[in-house]
C-alpha cells in the first residue's frame, strides 16, 4: 500500500511540485470529509451510508492566466499530475490583470463551528434521531400516514489552504441535519409536507420540532381547492421567505454586476428595497452553518450589511472583482468542493428581524394568501429577476385560515418583491442552507389560478 499522506503533507507536496515546475503563483486547497447518514422506512433503518472523501484542487496563475485542476489521487504522482494539469489549463485561458492569489496572512478565529467526535458515534445513535423525527410527526395527528423520506446525516470536514505567497491556514467544522417529508391522508387525498434543519452541534438539533413542523406542513394542505386569479397580499413564513431570499443573492455578486447580469448594477446608494428591509451577509456568525474563518481563496471572511433600511450598500466580492471595483477584499469567494474553483456567493445571508409581532402582522390583513410550498424555485431567473412559481397556500381572512389552495402560481420580479415588503416579523429563523429570514408580508403579488 502506498503511504497515505496527511492533509498537510498533501498541501506541502503540491507546493513543492509547483516550485519544482517553476510556477510563480498558485493556490492549493485540500478538503477531507467524513460523513454518515441514515434513512428510515416503516419505523426501521432502511439505508446506512458512510462516506470518506478527500481531494486536492490546484489553481495556477501564470502570466495573469488562471488554470485549475483537481484530483482525488493523493499519492505523490497523482499530486504532481494535478499540478501539471493546472499549469496546462493556465495556457488556455486569457490574461486578466486583476486576478490575484491570496497573500494576506490569516488570523486564527474560533467561530464555534466544530464539535469533535460527531463521526465517532455508533450507528444506532443516528438511527434513533431519524426515528424520533418520524415519531414526532406521527404524534401530531393520526392523519400522518406515510413518509416519503426521513433521514439524518452528519459530517466532519477539514479544509486546508496554502498559497505560494505565504497564506497557510486550516479549519475544522461539523454538521448534522435531519429532514422528513411527511404525508397526510384524508378521504383519499394525500398531501406532503417537508421540513429539514441543520446545526453545527448535536445538542442544537431538535428532532421533535422537525417532525412536528413537517407534519403541520402536510396537514395544512389537506382539503386544498382551486383559487381564482387575483392580486392580493402574500404572507411568507420564515421558511418560505428563505427559499425566495436564496434566489435574490446572485443580484449582489460583483461578477454579475461587472458583466451586466444583475439589476443591482450601478445602484449602490440607491433605495432597492422597502425601508423595513436590512439584509446582512455574516460569514462570522457564531455557530452559523455557512460560517468559516476564511473563504475559498484564502481571504479572511467578514460581516457585511448589503442592504441597510432599503438602501443598497455593497456587493459580494472575491479578490479579482474587489480590484476591479477598487474595494477591499471581503472574503465572499465560496468553494463547494475541492473539485471546483470558488465562486462569489453568500455565507449566512439573512433579513434582519423587524419590529412586528408575526401574528399581529397577519391579523392586520383583511384578505391574504400564506404560502405553504413553492415549486420550481430553481427556475427563478437571476438576470431578469423574474419569477413565476407553482405554489400551494392557505387563504386567510383577518389572519384566520379560511381554506387551503393548490394549483396556483405566484409571479413577479425579485426587485419589485423587495420593494413591496410591507411587514417584517420579529421571528428571524435560520435554515439549513445558512439563509435566514423573519416572517415577511408582501403588499401585493400576482396569483394565477382559475
Amino acid at each position: 500500500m502506498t503511504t497515505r499522506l496527511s492533509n498537510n503533507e498533501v498541501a506541502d507536496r503540491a507546493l513543492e511540485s509547483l516550485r519544482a515546475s517553476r510556477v510563480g503563483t498558485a493556490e492549493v486547497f485540500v478538503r477531507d470529509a467524513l460523513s454518515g447518514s441514515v434513512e428510515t422506512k416503516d419505523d426501521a433503518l432502511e439505508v446506512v451510508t458512510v462516506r470518506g472523501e478527500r481531494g486536492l484542487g490546484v489553481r495556477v496563475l501564470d502570466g495573469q492566466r488562471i488554470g485549475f485542476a483537481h484530483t482525488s489521487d493523493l499519492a505523490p504522482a497523482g499530486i504532481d499530475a494535478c499540478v501539471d494539469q493546472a499549469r496546462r489549463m493556465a495556457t488556455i485561458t486569457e490574461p486578466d490583470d486583476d486576478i490575484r492569489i491570496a497573500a494576506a496572512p490569516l488570523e486564527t478565529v474560533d467561530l464555534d463551528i466544530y464539535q469533535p467526535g460527531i463521526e465517532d458515534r455508533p450507528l444506532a445513535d443516528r438511527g434513533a434521531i431519524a426515528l424520533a423525527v418520524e415519531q414526532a410527526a406521527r404524534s401530531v395527528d393520526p392523519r400522518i400516514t406515510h413518509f416519503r423520506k426521513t433521514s439524518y446525516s452528519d459530517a466532519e470536514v477539514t479544509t486546508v489552504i496554502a498559497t505560494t505567497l505565504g497564506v497557510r491556514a486550516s479549519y475544522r467544522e461539523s454538521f448534522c441535519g435531519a429532514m422528513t417529508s411527511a404525508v397526510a391522508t384524508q378521504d383519499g387525498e394525500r398531501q406532503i409536507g417537508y421540513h429539514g434543519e441543520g446545526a453545527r452541534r448535536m445538542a442544537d438539533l431538535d428532532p421533535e420540532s422537525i417532525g412536528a413542523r413537517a407534519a403541520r406542513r402536510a396537514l395544512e394542505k389537506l382539503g386544498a381547492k382551486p383559487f381564482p386569479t387575483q392580486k392580493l397580499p402574500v404572507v411568507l413564513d420564515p421558511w418560505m421567505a428563505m427559499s425566495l431570499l436564496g434566489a435574490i443573492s446572485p443580484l449582489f455578486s460583483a461578477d454579475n454586476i461587472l458583466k451586466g447580469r444583475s439589476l443591482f448594477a450601478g445602484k449602490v446608494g440607491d433605495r432597492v428595497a422597502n425601508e423595513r428591509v436590512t439584509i446582512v451577509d455574516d460569514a462570522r456568525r457564531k455557530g452559523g452553518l455557512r460560517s468559516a474563518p476564511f473563504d475559498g481563496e484564502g481571504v479572511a471572511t467578514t460581516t457585511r450589511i448589503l442592504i441597510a433600511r432599503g438602501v443598497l450598500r455593497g456587493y459580494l466580492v472575491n479578490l479579482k472583482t474587489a480590484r476591479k471595483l477598487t474595494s477591499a477584499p471581503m472574503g465572499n469567494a465560496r468553494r463547494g468542493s475541492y473539485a471546483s474553483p470558488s465562486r462569489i456567493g453568500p455565507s449566512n445571508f439573512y433579513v434582519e428581524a423587524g419590529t412586528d409581532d408575526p401574528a399581529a402582522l397577519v391579523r392586520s390583513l383583511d384578505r391574504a394568501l400564506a404560502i405553504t410550498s413553492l415549486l420550481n424555485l430553481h427556475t427563478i431567473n437571476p438576470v431578469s429577476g423574474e419569477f413565476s412559481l407553482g405554489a400551494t397556500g392557505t387563504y386567510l381572512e383577518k389572519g384566520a385560515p379560511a381554506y387551503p389552495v393548490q394549483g396556483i402560481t405566484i409571479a413577479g420580479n425579485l426587485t419589485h418583491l423587495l420593494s413591496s415588503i410591507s411587514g417584517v416579523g420579529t421571528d428571524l429563523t435560520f435554515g439549513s442552507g445558512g439563509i435566514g429570514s423573519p416572517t415577511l408580508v408582501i403588499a401585493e403579488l400576482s396569483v394565477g389560478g382559475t
Partner: protein
Amino acid sequence: MTVRDVERALRTALSRGGDWAELFWERHETLQLVLDDQRIEDAITGVDQGAGVRVASGDQTVYANGNVTDVDDIMAIAGRAARSVADESGLHEAASLVPDDLPRPHSVAIDPRTVPVERKVALLRLANEVARSHDPRVSQATVSYAESVQEILVANSDGVHRTDTRVRVNFAVHVVAKDGAVLESGFEAVRGTRGFEMLTDDAVRGAAEMAARRAVLNVGAQPAPAGTYTVVLSSEAGGTLIHESVGHGLEADLNLKGLSVYSGRIGQKVASELITVIDDGRDAGQRGTSAMDDEATPTQRTVLIEKGILRTYLSDRKHAEKLGIRRSGNARRESFRHLPICRMTNTMIASGESDPEEIVRSVKAGIFVKKMGGGQVDVVSGNFAFEVTECYRIRDGKVAEPLRGATLVGQGPTLMSEIDMVGSDLGYSTGTCGKDGQGAPVADAQPTLRIPSVVIGGKVQ
C-alpha cells in the same frame, strides 16, 4: 484492479453477514472551458476516482464509499461496509464473477479527449461571435464546453461483472439582452451521450443563434397573463411536461411506498387513449443513454403507458423484485458517492395522428408554448410546475405576439386525461434531472399537444 481483486472485495463486504453485495467503481475525467464577457475565463480539468460498496441484508442496505487511489482503498471501503452490517442470520458466499460486456447502444466517433484544445476554444469563440452579432440588444454571452468520460465497473455477489463507458459532451450558450432597464436571458445547449462529432460548426452556430434570438425576443415581449387558458405545446418545446407530470410519478420507489398518484394502478386507465409514454435508455446518442444502468442491468425501451393504460414502472433491482415487475434498467446514480435510485433516462410521449399546424389552427384564443425550461413535481399530490422560456399568444388560430415569464401548473393524471390532440411530430430536449440530491443527465421528447384548459402563471392584468 483484477477480477480476483473484485471478488475479494465482495467477499470482504459479506464477511460479517448480509445477503447480497455489490461493488461500484468509477473513474470520471472532466474538462470544462468557459468563455464569459469576451474572454476564455475558466479552464478546469480533473479526475474523480472512487468506489462504493453496498451490502443488503433483509430490508436494510449499508453503503460505504469514498475516493480510491488503489486496490487497498477499495478493500478498506468493503471492510467499512461489512462493519456496519448488523445481520446475525449467517454468512452468504459471493458467486464467482463471470465478466461479460453488453452491446453499446451507439459508438463514439471522436473521443473528445483526442481533440486539440484549440478546436474547442475556436467553437467557444464562434458561438460568442454569432450570439453577439445577432442583435444590438445582445449585451452579454457566456459559452461553455464540457466533456465528461465516465468509466464504471459494477460487480455483485450474483456473479455479475460489467463495465460501461459514458462519453458525454455539453456545449451551452447563455445570452443576456438589455433594453432600457429590462434584462432578459436566453439559453440553448447541444448535448448528448456522444463524442465530439456532435459539435459541428453548424450545431454550435445554431445553438448560439437560438439563445440570442430567445433573449432578444423575451426582452421585447409582454409579461404573460395569469389565468386559465387553452395551450398548444409545440414539439419543439421539448419534454419537460412528460418528465414532471408523469415520469417522476412512475418511479418504482415511490410506488412501492404507495405514495405516487399512480400507485397500484397498473392495468388501469391513467391518461387519455391518445397518450403513450415510453422511457428508452438505448435511444442512440441521447443524453440519458447508456449500455447499462448503474446496477449493471441492460438499459431498454419500456412502454410505461400504452394508449392511456398504465403498464409498468421505472424500476431498479430492489423495487422490481418487491413490486413483482421486470427490471427496466432505470437504476441510476450521480456518482460512486450515492446509491442508485429509480429514475428516467430518455422519456417521451409517442407521436399521434394530428397535423401539428392543424392543432394550432384549432385554437381560437390561447397560448402557444415553443420552449420549456425547468420543472418540478410534488409526486404525492401530482401537482407540477414548469417554466416556459418562449411562448406566444394564439389569436384566431394563428401564432401572434410573444409573451415572457410564464409558468404552467397542473396535476399530472388530470392533465394527461385532458390532452385532446396529439401531433404526428416529435421534438427532443435535454436536461439534468434532480432527485434526492442527485443529478442525472436526461432527455425528454413529445409531439405537439393541445391542452384544453390549464393554469398559466404570470402577471395579473
